[in-house]
């Protein structure tokens, strides 16, 4: 069954309402402090609580405190790539110009958070597993995600005509989204060294509430921080493209030549 053309058109017009750069910049400027300040406060609260006040694990000792950085980073690595895939659909189906600019800006932030996830995972793995790295399904699929981010960053800037870069990168983002369920279910589908999820949508968490609260706060804070960073970078990108358009406008160049 296919979606009706009216629904597609209505959705398109909804998204295009925010394709207007002026409207987006106005909305973005209003939204920015509401994302940035709660992100700073919640992240400091969550990480401070996790680092100094939450209990050590009976088995892992204090190394469990790495969880308050590692778990939000892992969640956001996948969520960031899902956002790239959404931008890809908006770009390919509705040719939404802001989706392309957002995709350019999500890539580097997503790659950084994935690198943080891999690095903190290694730093947690060394004292617990006795090794920095194993070619286990979860770790390998996250490494593939990191390479997908790097590929996206490279591809989107690889063409002289930006539109071709946007199209190619959008296709890569959609194809790479296959990795997301593999990351999620890798610990169930294969026998991995990585532990299974402690928090699921269907069951009760297998973690004490004294650890769950700081984890929730740091996850919320870091997620808001990710959104704030992407918003700030996209606002800057919109302004930069406006600057480019103004500088390359023939009327302006003629005026300067005269």
């Amino acid at each position, binding site marked *: 069954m296919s979606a009706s053309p009216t629904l597609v058109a209505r959705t398109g017009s909804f998204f295009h309402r925010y394709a207007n750069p002026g409207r987006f910049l106005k909305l973005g400027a209003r939204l920015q402090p509401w994302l940035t300040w709660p992100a700073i406060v919640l*992240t400091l609260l969550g*990480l401070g609580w996790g*680092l100094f006040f939450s209990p*050590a694990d009976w088995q892992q*000792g*204090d*190394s469990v*405190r*790495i969880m308050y*950085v*590692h778990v939000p*980073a892992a969640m956001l690595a996948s969520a960031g790539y899902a956002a790239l895939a959404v931008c890809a659909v908006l770009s390919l189906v509705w040719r939404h110009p802001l989706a392309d600019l957002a995709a350019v800006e999500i890539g580097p*932030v997503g790659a*950084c*958070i994935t*690198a*943080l996830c891999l*690095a*903190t995972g290694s*730093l*947690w793995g*060394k*004292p617990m597993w006795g090794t920095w790295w194993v070619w286990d399904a979860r770790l390998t699929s996250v490494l593939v995600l990191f390479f997908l981010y790097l590929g996206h960053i490279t591809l989107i800037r690889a063409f*002289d*005509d930006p539109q071709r870069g946007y199209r190619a990168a959008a296709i890569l983002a959609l194809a790479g989204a296959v990795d997301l369920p593999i990351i999620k279910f890798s610990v169930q589908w294969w026998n991995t060294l990585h532990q299974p999820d402690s928090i699921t949508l269907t069951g009760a968490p297998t973690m004490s509430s004294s650890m769950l609260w700081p984890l929730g706060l740091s996850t919320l804070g870091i997620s808001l*921080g990710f959104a704030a*960073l992407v918003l*700030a*970078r996209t*606002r*800057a990108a919109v*302004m*930069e493209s*406006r*600057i480019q358009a*103004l*500088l*390359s406008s023939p009327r*302006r*160049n003629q005026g*300067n*030549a005269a």
Partner: protein
Amino acid sequence: MTHLPYIAASYGLALVLSLTLALNAAWRLKTARARLAMLERGNLRPVQPAPRPEAAPSSTDTQTP
């Protein structure tokens, strides 16, 4: 605290990465806002792009005078 170096490295890495990204975003926003304001007031002259080493001309090269 057990495993202190690993914990310190994790939190330090998170701090450095978030500060770098935040400062970069703030600097880009500030620069873009200032340049756009200058341009809209008509005070900024177009910047000539630096010559590229490649032999093949790009699509943008043909537009510049």
